[in-house]
């Protein structure tokens, strides 16, 4: 453990290209990982290129009728207002990705700062922060989210806020543990003997060692965030119409489920493919970079 962190901290810059090639070769051998990568690339690609991919405008009402079954013109049918479901799903991917990016960036930065403080600070501060973090984790996530929605009103940013708050404790805890195991290392002591201040030690010596595992964990949390966004939007507590979200599309389909099965069938597919893609890729990445991260669950 100690040796490994040493080499990573010192030689990180020099051996990068070579190490990356090795990781890529190992990933290619993991069939599920490659499958996950393909799904993730498809999802991210279609989200970025969405305006150029969609055959119709996602708000345009079609002449072909409402709740129509799939045809060549509308590969996934139309919804209760007669809008093209495929176009809406592609645009919904943008919303899902946007929420995931914003929420995870916020949670990562906050978790990193709090974890560094708890791991490097005095013991009383550490214990106090741990208790507060545990208290935040005592709320069941969806129910906490619903409480916040009642207070702030439903919107995309409420979801981002909720996801960030509920994921911070997990990240902060990991950063804290890693920081504590690093803080008594010789290279940190040497640095301190040379006169480096705490901010410098944290920023230059501790953070690079902590951020790698953190990023892998965050990539494994993408499906959770996407599920959260779709789930809250499905309940009508998330992204509001007319913005298309996978959850609101499912909700529309659910309300008309006795008339047509197609919107529900179509609405579930991108959620399933995206969560599977990120999960398979995340597991493969974790096995390659850091087998120790294997969570029990």
């Amino acid at each position, binding site marked *: 453990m100690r040796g490994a962190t040493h080499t990573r901290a010192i030689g990180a810059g020099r051996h990068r290209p070579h190490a990356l090639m090795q990781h890529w070769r190992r990933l290619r051998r993991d069939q599920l990982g490659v499958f996950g990568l393909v799904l993730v690339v498809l999802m991210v690609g279609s989200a970025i290129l969405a305006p150029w991919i969609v055959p119709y405008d996602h708000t345009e009402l079609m002449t072909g009728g409402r709740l129509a079954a799939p045809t060549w013109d509308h590969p996934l049918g139309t919804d209760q207002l007669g809008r093209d479901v495929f176009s809406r799903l592609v645009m919904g991917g943008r919303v899902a990705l946007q929420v995931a990016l914003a929420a995870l960036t916020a949670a990562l930065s906050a978790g990193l700062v709090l974890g560094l403080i708890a791991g490097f600070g005095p013991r009383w501060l550490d214990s106090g922060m741990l208790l507060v973090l*545990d208290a935040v984790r005592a709320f069941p996530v969806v*129910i906490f989210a619903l409480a916040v929605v009642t207070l702030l009103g439903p919107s995309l940013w409420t979801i981002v806020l909720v996801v960030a708050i509920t994921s911070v404790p997990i990240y902060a805890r990991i950063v804290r543990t890693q920081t504590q195991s690093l803080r008594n290392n010789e290279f940190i002591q040497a640095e301190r003997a040379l006169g480096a201040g705490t901010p410098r030690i944290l920023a230059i010596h501790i953070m690079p060692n902590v951020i790698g595992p953190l990023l892998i964990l965050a990539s494994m949390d993408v499906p959770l965030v996407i599920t959260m966004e*779709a*789930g809250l939007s499905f*309940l*009508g507590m998330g992204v509001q119409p007319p913005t298309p979200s996978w959850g609101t599309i499912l909700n529309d389909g659910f309300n008309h489920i006795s008339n047509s099965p197609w919107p529900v069938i179509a609405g579930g597919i991108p959620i399933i493919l995206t969560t599977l893609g990120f999960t398979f890729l995340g597991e493969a990445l974790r096995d390659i970079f850091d087998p120790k991260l294997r969570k029990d669950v």
Partner: protein
Amino acid sequence: MWFFLARRLGLAAAIVVLAVTLLYLMIHAVPGDPASIILGPRATPELKAALRAEMGLDQPLPLQIAGFFWDLLHGDLGYDVFSDRPVSQIVFERLPHTITLILTSIAWAAVIGIPLGCYSAIRRNTLIDKITGVLSVSTIAIPSFVMALYALLLFAVTLNWLPAIGVGEGFLGRLTHLVLPAFAVGISWVGYMARIVRASMLEVLGENHVRMVRAFGMPERRIITHYALPIAIMPTVTLIGVGMAHLLSAAVFAETVFARPGVGSLIVDAVDARNYPVVMGCVLVTTGLFVIATTLADIINGLLDPRTRESL
């Protein structure tokens, strides 16, 4: 042991106190005061002032929080103006349906998931083990509300085999109404259980006491059921405790999709109606349930395995 118990219970109490305080502070950090939110936009200033006084909002914050705890200790979760009933009555009326759903889901998931995990561990790296592995990860990844919707569509709407709405009457009715929601909530738990039992089983099978009974010529079947499984099953206790939060969250969706009158659908309806006291009542009760579940899991683990008592 007593020291461990006291420490664990103390920690649980501290977490509940902090969580409730955080919730209270959160409510009050929001712009606009609760009185005007509860009364709606057409309330007169006099009405608001009266309600503020009644809710104790005119007192200093620490006093308010103390009062809040005092009421909680007396089982008073506030009053619902819409239905003209105490919140605790409304929530505890719905709670049994949610608990039935959660326990049924966990039970069927354990009955299938634990043997599956055992089998995978014993027949490691066979085709069945690999298929189980991929299926476990997939069921964990796919959101429960998508499962619920697909199950509703297939078995209730299209095939019409099972009822889709409500909790049903009589034993058989209740049972048939439980099938689809329990499937949706439990399916990912088959994956969780299979995964964790497989991992801990592999670990246990390599340990000395198992190797010893094998050297004595004990039949493999008996080694698994009598010597390995009782130890390998322990992590699932922690898993269920921590997973209580997932289960409660999944129940929110299952109850909404299948129109079950549980706490989950109650909170969704309350959020829709902006029924503030009921939302907070639901949050408090489910949070309490979750803390109780994790505490119980830790205590059971401490009883079964003295080593875990120290890691607190």
